[in-house]
């Protein structure tokens, strides 16, 4: 639960940071898009049956790290935001958290062998 809430907060920060840090261009678009995806998927992954969507945030976190070097972000603030947010997000996405409910084998039960 808390790992998902941390990533939700990181996502909201990424959406707000271009206004706070006065970023523009690619840094702004990248930050807002990654933030919206991360916040949405981390909220959906709070529920146990959709917990697997936390892996989307591992991808978003890794992309944030890469993007800091791919785009020509002007200013240390933009680069630092992308790197720190990406590291935190990737680390949090690795935490599975407790699964207390039984759901008949989950989604993988749909794709198993017949029988």
């Amino acid at each position, binding site marked *: 639960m808390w790992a998902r809430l941390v990533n939700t907060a990181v996502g909201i920060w990424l959406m707000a940071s271009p206004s706070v840090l006065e970023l523009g261009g690619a840094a*702004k678009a990248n930050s807002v898009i990654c933030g919206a995806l991360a916040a949405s998927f981390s*909220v959906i992954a709070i529920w146990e*049956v959709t917990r697997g969507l936390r892996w989307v945030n591992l991808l978003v976190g890794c992309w944030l790290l890469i993007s800091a070097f791919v785009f020509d972000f002007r200013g240390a603030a933009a680069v630092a935001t992308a790197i720190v947010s990406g590291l935190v997000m990737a680390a949090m996405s690795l935490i599975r958290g407790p699964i*207390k409910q039984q*759901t*008949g084998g989950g989604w993988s039960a749909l794709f198993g062998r*017949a*029988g």
Partner: protein
Amino acid sequence: MNENQAPPGWSYNPSAWSQRLPIVALAFVGFGIALYLALYQWRVFDTVWEPFFGGGSRTILNSGVSRILPIPDAALGAVGYIADAVTGIIGGSKRWKTMPWIVIVFGLAVGPLGAVSILLVILQPVMFDAWCTLCLASAIVSVLMIGPAMDEMLASLQFVRSEWNKGRSLWRTFLGIGDQHGSPSLPVGGSVS
């Protein structure tokens, strides 16, 4: 209504009213927000409530993207939320096995609607350099509905799969018709929302 009709291998019943009513309540909240925004887009209201982002809501709600379709995008959202609410209400607390089709329609309505809202939120600041408070609120409502709706869809899909494995008709199982052990008969072809 027995609320303890959990599917095989489940520790709870995802079709119980206690599981479904919060989602339906969220759908009504989303409908209220979307309807208000649509009425502004239709100019029934001359102004739109925007406490944080100045002219942001006006920019977003009058943008080219919002008018791609014959009806304003908020009106489409309102229709989507009504579809969520209707498909969330139909059926009893055993509907994961008595009417899988409505559960699966419900899951698809909640999932894609949330995805569209996320897409619109992403488009707003990137394309128009503006934010819209009530559009964000609507997107939050949509996102909150997805997680709690997916468990019921999983239960129905597992049920259809296991009946199919037993050699029963996929189609009849999906529609909840017929030869199933103890399943009540259902209004065939009725109440399509």
